[in-house]
């Protein structure tokens, strides 16, 4: 039995070597997505980045991807598979892929890994992220201008710093327009669950919110807003098709330029591990066209966007924590380290952060 097994394994190994030997000398770049690319949100947008890279770099690269990879034990295998199938650089696009990527990166030192939204780096594992909070600040301002009830609803996935940062930035933006603005929050404990997201949107509207925003990946909440004749914001990609009368703007991720830059670096041999956090300034965070709002609101949003692009940080003091204590003094700017580990709300958020 054991002999048979060994014989089988060696034949199999020989076969597989014959197959890999004929692989072309194109750079193979691979992606692992947490959701389906048809989510029209986060994973879709990463895939758009992949397609953009394919278009830009043409026949110098070939790409492959795995979608809908669960953040549990399957993630290890996904990265292992891509590493074994000849990928030279692998992008993992969800926070939960962090430790699997650390493990696999250690095992394949010649392959380059790039992890979105994590914090662990090594020789061949870089980290990239986008300052989504910049767009959310602008969205908060718009919400405060547009809301009649002075209440917005916010659908969120998991209480990680990334998400808390978005809530705080939205709230600060809203308060800059209307200091009494209220924010109601529903946790759905999923990145992609259209059913739950729609239910959450309905519940928030029923509780008096008239504007909805979300840190989840589907178009469901915005579609509920459309049905009810209310307003909302898109997430990750421009969702105007799904809510032509409801979407005010969408906080869009534009990964294409970064992917092209990194692939070029691999091609010319200058790739080094990095830890970048790109924003509106770099074109990685884009706000899709401001629609369904009067011109003065549009002008205000444009002005804020420009201010941020010019280097102003929405987390500039004075800012108070939810418990009333002061976080940032007058003119003090939050440093990136604090933001990346953010685990508290700013003043005025009507929710208890799950601890």
């Amino acid at each position, binding site marked *: 039995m054991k002999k048979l097994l060994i014989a089988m394994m060696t034949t199999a190994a020989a*076969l597989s070597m014959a197959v890999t030997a004929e692989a072309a000398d194109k750079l193979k770049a691979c992606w692992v997505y947490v959701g389906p690319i*048809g989510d029209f949100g986060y994973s879709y947008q990463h895939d758009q980045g992949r397609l953009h890279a394919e278009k830009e770099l043409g026949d110098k690269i070939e790409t492959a991807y795995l979608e809908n990879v669960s953040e549990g*034990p399957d993630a290890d295998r996904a990265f292992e598979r891509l590493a074994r199938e000849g990928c030279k650089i692998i992008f993992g696009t969800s926070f939960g892929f962090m430790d699997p990527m650390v493990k696999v990166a250690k095992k394949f030192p010649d392959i380059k890994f790039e992890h979105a939204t994590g914090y662990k780096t090594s020789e061949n594992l870089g980290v990239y992220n986008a300052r989504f909070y910049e767009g959310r600040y602008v969205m908060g301002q718009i919400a405060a201008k547009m809301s009649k009830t002075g209440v917005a609803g916010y659908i969120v996935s998991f209480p990680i710093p990334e998400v808390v940062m978005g809530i705080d930035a939205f709230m600060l933006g809203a308060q800059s327009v209307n200091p009494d603005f209220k924010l109601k929050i529903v946790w759905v404990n999923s990145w992609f669950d259209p059913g739950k997201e729609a239910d959450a949107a309905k519940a928030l509207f029923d509780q008096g919110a008239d504007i909805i925003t979300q840190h989840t990946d589907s178009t469901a909440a915005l579609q509920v807003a459309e049905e009810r004749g209310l307003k909302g914001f898109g997430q990750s990609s421009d969702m105007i098709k799904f809510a032509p009368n409801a979407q005010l703007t969408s906080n869009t991720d534009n990964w294409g330029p970064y992917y092209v830059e990194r692939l070029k670096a691999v091609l010319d041999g200058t790739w080094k591990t990095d830890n970048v956090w790109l924003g509106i300034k770099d074109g990685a965070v884009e706000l899709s066209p401001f629609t369904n709002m009067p011109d003065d609101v549009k002008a205000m949003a444009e002005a804020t966007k420009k201010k941020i692009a010019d280097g102003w940080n929405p987390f500039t003091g004075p800012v108070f924590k939810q418990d009333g204590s002061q976080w940032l003094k007058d003119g003090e700017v939050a440093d990136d380290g604090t933001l990346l580990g953010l685990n508290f709300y700013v003043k005025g958020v009507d929710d208890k952060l799950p601890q």
Partner: protein
Amino acid sequence: MRLELVKRPQRSALFSALSPFIAFALTLIAGAILFALLGIDPVSAFYTYFISPISEVWQLHELAIKAAPLILIAVGLSVCYRANIWNIGAEGQFTLGAIVGSMVPVLYPELEGPIVLPLMLLMGMIGGGLYAAIPAYLKARFNTNEILTSLMLVYVSQLFLDWLVRGPWRDPQGHGFPQTVQFNDSAILPELMPASGRANWGFVFALVAAVVVWIMMSRMLKGFEVRVLGSSPRAGRFAGFGLNRMIFFAFILSGALAGLAGISVVSGEINQLKPVISPGYGFAAIIVAFLGRLNPLGIVAAGLVLALTYLGGEAAQTALGVSDKVARVFQGMLLFFVLGCDTLIHYRIRLVGLRAKAPAPDPATAGKLGEAH
């Protein structure tokens, strides 16, 4: 016009043996049509799907990793289902096993040595077993429907895990992210052959469990008791077998095996607790149990086949660029044909015309799909 499933007086031994192959052939035909419609060469699709995952040593390891929890859980479930006890909550017992087993490395991270791992595995089994005892108690004491209680406890366990890793068990060094500390080396299930791939001892546990349960079911009085109580509780009572004792036995056994699967996955693969630790193993194992015809050795084969379709689906994504949805449709077709063929061994289809009103079917021989197990 309507269709009726009528129980065959006796099943054909020939077709029982041939059924998996017929099902496989039907899957290939339907799959070829599917792939051809998508503009993909069916031959290369089948190669990618069924051959490529077993053509490389590392992939055999991955196959073992993926199959191990499926087999381990399904073997336990087969005892339940033979006894006509419907434990649907293996996913929850898996989760609780992982949580209880992880108490050691999470709460005592500095504890090292050879005692750690056996202790974790034992605690994992206890955790899963005790969690399964809840629906068992409710059924034995209050005659509650165990399908509902065991299923609902899945959600309870998942939310409990979620709360733990965001709250009391969160890694204080983890920048506020929802995960526990990484297990230390003595809390990690060793790999079998680290030189060639990642497969760990979980697969060995699965094989041992399958053999032990097979011996119990076919050679020991306990197995006889399970089968008698399952097919005829009345006859079982006359034989002096206690139904309530059997409810506890079946639930705790399957819960303990699911718990062992849970702690094996967490210890061997994830090395820490996170909000998501299972891609639905506890539910997929239900399919595996029936695919293996509730026979522990058949379950080993069924677990490997189902694991193969997962790996094949991924290979098809990267090699052919087909969507993961197509891979799942194909997996669904395979299961549909296998279970469909098995059903037709036990039942035949009768067309009942509207005009010629057939005499009411004899309740003793007419069956419905739901009773086809």
